[in-house]
């Protein structure tokens, strides 16, 4: 009798186990009398009140069953759909329960996400991604599935059904500064990107051509990369203050957005320079020789041959740079540069965890969105000429 495995998918089993354990043992939500006190736990089953709530469990059942099903396209497709629906459903359920709890509590009472929610939410999204991989679809599909989940959660946000969750109560308090903080965050990253590209790309091209420059550039950039960001902000404080005192007309100061942009530029240079060099190094010597032998000028070789062939590697460098800068820009709030970091630190200092989340979640969303957009660009380029 042939051996019949009961288990078909180890990843799915791990995710199913995490979801089951989180559902049974970890608090789904926390309910506190006000924003500073830690709340009492609310279990998942306690949040299941109406028949609609139980419907959320349906995709959960599918996700739990998949490791024991014979693999196939239908199972994988169901896995993707169930993962997305579970992720969205959990958010909806949390919002619905928060509204119910708020109805019978003092105005200062708060309902926050519990550990159980985070574990299940993460596992559900990972399940959807695992399903996309198993379907053998192009990486662009992973981005499409992620975008679909984000869009559904966005709809929930817009509908007001999540308004009683603590993080959105914090948002309501910060409504006037939140949009400005997001915009400032994006401006910090964009402002650092301009000098990074203006310095990094020519430096990379030069380093690729002149070994002496290459030997000099990389040790410096590697060291900069290892300096902790807070230390770099501190190191910039003294020279920039001196500069501000010497040339008051320049509008430079030791604190504020200018040193933040300078520090972000320093960090961003390494991935850009490195990937510019690696991209150009990756152009085969035979291709260069053929281009020269055909009678292309140096300029034609650079623009028609080297640039297109180096572009995918360069774009991965840009992706690393941007994701890193989105994260580091949060720390820049410490020197008064503003951005989402300002909201996070305000929450940290006030011991209001949901205010920290209000700053951190958009940073994560921004980083993931930038990552996805550039991965998409690289995969579209790669399809043209693998």
């Amino acid at each position: 009798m042939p051996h019949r495995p009961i288990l078909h998918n180890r990843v799915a089993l791990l995710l199913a186990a995490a979801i089951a354990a989180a559902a049974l043992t970890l608090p789904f939500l926390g309910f506190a009398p006000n924003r500073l006190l830690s709340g009492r736990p609310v279990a998942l089953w306690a949040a299941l009140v109406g028949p609609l709530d139980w419907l959320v469990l349906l995709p959960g059942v599918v996700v739990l069953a998949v490791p024991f099903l014979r693999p196939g396209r239908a199972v994988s497709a169901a896995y993707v759909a169930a993962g997305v629906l579970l992720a969205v459903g959990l958010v909806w359920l949390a919002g619905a329960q928060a509204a119910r709890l708020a109805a019978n509590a003092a105005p200062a009472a708060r309902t926050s996400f519990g550990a159980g929610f985070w574990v299940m939410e993460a596992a559900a999204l990972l399940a959807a991604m695992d399903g996309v991989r198993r379907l053998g679809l192009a990486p662009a599909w992973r981005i499409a599935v992620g975008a679909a989940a984000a869009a559904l959660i966005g709809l929930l946000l817009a509908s007001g059904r999540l308004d009683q969750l603590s993080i959105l109560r914090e948002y309501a308090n910060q409504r006037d500064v939140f949009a400005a903080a997001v915009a400032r965050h994006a401006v910090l990253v964009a402002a650092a990107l301009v000098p990074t590209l203006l310095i990094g790309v020519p430096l990379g091209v030069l380093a690729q051509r002149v070994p002496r420059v290459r030997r000099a550039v990389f040790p410096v950039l590697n060291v900069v990369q290892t300096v902790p960001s807070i230390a770099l902000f501190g190191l910039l404080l003294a020279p920039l203050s001196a500069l501000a005192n010497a040339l008051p007309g320049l509008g430079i100061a030791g604190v504020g957005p200018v040193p933040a942009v300078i520090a972000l530029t320093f960090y961003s240079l390494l991935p850009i320079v490195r990937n510019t060099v690696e991209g150009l190094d990756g152009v085969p010597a035979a291709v260069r020789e053929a281009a020269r032998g055909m009678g292309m000028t140096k300029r034609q070789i650079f623009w028609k041959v080297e640039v297109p062939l180096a572009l995918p590697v360069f774009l991965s460098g840009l992706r690393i740079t941007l994701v890193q800068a989105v994260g580091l820009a949060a720390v820049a709030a410490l020197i008064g540069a503003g951005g989402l970091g300002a909201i996070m630190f305000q929450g940290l200092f006030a011991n209001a965890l949901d205010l920290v989340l209000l700053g951190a979640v958009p940073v994560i969303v921004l980083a993931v969105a930038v990552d996805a957009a550039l991965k998409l660009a690289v995969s579209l380029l790669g399809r043209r000429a693998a």
Partner: protein
Amino acid sequence: MITFDRVTKRFEPWTAVDGVSLTVEAGEFCVLIGPSGSGKSTLMKMTNRLIVPEEGTIRVDGEDIATLRPEDLRRRMGYVIQNVGLFPHWTVERNIATVPTLLGWPKARVRDRVSDLLDLLKLDARRFRDAYPHQLSGGQQQRVGVARALAAEPAILLMDEPFSALDPITRGALQAEMTAIHKATGTTIVFVTHDMDEALKLANRIAVLDHGRLVQFGTPLDILHHPANDTVRDLIGREDWGLKLLAVETVGQRVRPEEDGAIGAPLPADAPLRQAIAEMVARGTDRLPVVDAGGRPAGVLHLSDVVRS
């Protein structure tokens, strides 16, 4: 016509090409051969100024190439290298069209030229025109490489060990293709190799280089019958000298003008003697009928005439 006049190139501390004078006639298939480091590749690359000599002059059709813009000079010559170097982000069509596009040919003319070249190199246009290089086998890639070099109808074709990286069967097919293309177009070809069999098969004349000096310059038969020194003898290979000769000499050179005495399928007079020996062994005979280029009987080839020198 390409004339090298006392050309020297040093890569300190060593001299790659040392005072070489050499004239490649128009329409000639000239093979440069020598051991590695002999300067054969350097000499060829000086023809299109990929390398610039320190001393001496190189003239193409009487014109000193040092006075020309390198890009213009290169666009007048085809260039094929061992590692092909197709542009991986361009289709086969765009690769072949490289030089015509640089020269600003009209689109319709480029397209027709690409079609003709795909035919010439026996590549199915429907299948290959829009393919990318990574979808092609090594032999197909080098066919595209040769087509690309011929695209702008150059008077001179430079080839740097173009078939060394290919398997023997593919290499043989491409060698036959080159002989046919040379016959059909009359292009002057300078071909670098380290393989004497390849040189003997393709060349009108062979230039043997060693340590940057020209050791011998002559027809394949010259080289085989009167090797100038031990380097040439080593390149020929002392043991299979006889076999090399059989590959170069033709049936027509040894045929007896007899009327009868041999039966079976006749051999063309321009077939190499090597093929005649192979036929004799296969048929178990020592006589073969021979026909001339027009298919008329030309006589009989005797085994004893093949082995007498």
